[in-house]
């Protein structure tokens, strides 16, 4: 350590205080704890950041502040009783969480889902995707300093979707809607027409949103070449969802698995080229446009009929001994539920594969060498919800 530094440091050294080593810039390294109550961390998430001047030299993500024993609780609950808990994983996308869990249980017990219920699932899942991506972009802009405006526009659209969810499921966020072998209730009269109206007006919102943001020079300056993830790194780290596709890997579980009835919808999978934050923003916009197409087709094709497999009953549900893994393309990536049944009314093992947590793997790598302000933007583009990261 050179003594030709700030007089205060010399004084500290005289008193025998331990000083952290200096960085490349010659300035002492500074350790900052960002979070867990920092407004940019999207919940109770903490990053221990070591800074050399303004540059990040080390970053350690610390999570677990929202841990609530989700997987252990599930081993004590009935299969049905777990459904409302899955709402609370990624509380923005409760309907896709429901679907992933229902899919795992249906695989476990070998239950068929009626046609109309499949369509209702696709409609609710794609609405969830619209809502999640719109909100994510809003929050990303908020993190970047566009205080409020894009976020409020996103919230305005989200509110319309939430009203639709409330009319269908009874709750804006904690829907508890899917059941093993179908859905809990049928769409009320006129609901599909309301969805149709909302879907028809959504492209206009997207156009306006893009006019506001896509060409914005500040947005470009803050996001392009920031937080680059290469194709190889993305695959090796197990990233999924928009994070992976922004790096140019064509992997969408809706296409790969074709779960539910997704193979009936001819949608395209947008891919990024650079794997930077701007690509991750753009992927979300393009995915929303594809979701609108899926919704339009689903609303046109949805048949009448039952919404629940009549063989399944809500109480005393006991799948046969076995194990199953059900996964879907949630708006954030691959959301999977792994279940082991021992033939009783409660799962023997219940495991969640959360996209938010696994997409955080490369956080340090993305942030190294960037400025402090970029950490916030990079974290915002990963799209995490702490309910899912910590479980």
């Amino acid at each position: 350590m050179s003594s030709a530094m700030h007089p205060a440091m010399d004084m500290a050294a005289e008193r025998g205080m331990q000083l952290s080593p200096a960085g490349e810039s010659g300035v002492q390294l500074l350790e900052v704890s960002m979070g867990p109550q920092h407004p940019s961390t999207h919940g109770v998430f903490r990053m221990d950041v070591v800074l050399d001047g303004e540059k990040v030299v080390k970053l350690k993500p610390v999570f677990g502040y929202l841990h609530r024993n989700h997987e252990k609780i599930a081993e004590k609950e009935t299969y049905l009783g777990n459904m409302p808990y899955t709402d609370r994983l990624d509380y923005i996308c409760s309907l896709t969480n429901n679907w992933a869990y229902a899919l795992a249980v249906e695989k476990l017990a070998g239950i068929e889902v009626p046609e109309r219920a499949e369509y209702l699932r696709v409609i609710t899942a794609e609405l969830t995707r619209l809502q999640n991506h719109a909100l994510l972009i809003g929050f990303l802009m908020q993190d970047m300093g566009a205080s409020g405006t894009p976020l409020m526009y996103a919230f305005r659209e989200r509110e319309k979707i939430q009203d639709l969810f409330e009319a269908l499921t009874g709750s804006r966020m904690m829907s508890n809607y899917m059941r093993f072998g179908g859905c809990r209730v049928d769409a009320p009269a006129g609901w599909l027409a309301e969805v149709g109206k909302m879907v028809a007006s959504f492209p206009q919102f997207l156009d306006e949103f893009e006019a506001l943001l896509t060409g914005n020079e500040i947005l470009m300056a803050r996001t392009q070449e920031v937080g680059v993830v290469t194709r190889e790194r993305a695959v090796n780290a197990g990233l999924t969802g928009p994070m992976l596709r922004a790096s140019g890997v064509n992997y969408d579980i809706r296409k790969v698995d074709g779960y539910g009835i997704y193979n009936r919808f001819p949608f395209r999978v947008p891919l990024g080229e650079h794997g930077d934050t701007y690509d991750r923003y753009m992927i979300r916009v393009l995915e929303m446009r594809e979701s609108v197409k899926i919704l339009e087709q689903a609303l046109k094709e949805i048949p009448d009929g039952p919404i629940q497999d009549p063989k399944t009953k809500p109480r005393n549900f006991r799948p046969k001994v076995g194990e199953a893994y059900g996964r879907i393309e949630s708006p954030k990536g691959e959301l999977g539920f792994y279940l082991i049944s021992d033939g009783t009314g409660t799962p023997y093992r219940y495991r969640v594969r959360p996209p938010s947590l696994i997409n955080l793997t490369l956080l340090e790598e993305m942030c190294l060498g960037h400025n402090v302000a970029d950490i916030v933007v990079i974290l915002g583009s990963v799209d995490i919800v702490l309910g899912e990261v910590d479980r």
Partner: protein
Amino acid sequence: MLGRGIVEGMLETARNFLGSYVSRERLTTVQYPEERLAHIENARSFPFLVYDGADWQAGMRCVSCQICEKECPPKCIYIEKSVDKKPDAVGRPQNYPKVFNIDVSVCMSCQICVEVCPFDAIKMDVEYELGAHDRFGGLLLDKQRLSKSNEYYHRIHPTEAAAVDAALAEERAKMQAKQQAAAAAAAAKAAAPVAATPSAAIPSAPATEGKA
């Protein structure tokens, strides 16, 4: 040209700002609590107990079968079964809950209790302004606070309540037909010297008609 994107974005902001003066589409907020939105029919907040007729104790549909207590995921329901019996919504003599508490600070509004209730006794309310100064007593709702009339249920969930009433009326009709058959059988038996049959002790169905 540098700055063009920003200017275009500003135009978008101006469009929304000025539009909010003329279009409801762009001004979507309401001034709560002075101004309120009508609740959506399927909305749900916390459970309540339905009773028929005017007296909440006599008309209580709950027969304290305790299925909801067992199935409730966060276990926020506490029920104590009565020793004596009273006629339920369809006229069968049944137990009733001596104690029925729901801790709404624990309840997560999942409505699984509603789904598993075989007696249509527990339904979801739409009341959401439940703030209380006492977080223990104020949010622990007892039987009396939970009881709400069937008319109230019809007011908040008209479609669902009508379906429930129709199903109950059907069941009640079946029950009455059964009782009449039993009474006829008893009358036939009355010719014999031993007359006291248990069916004569079954009270008639409570006055619950006239809804919907």
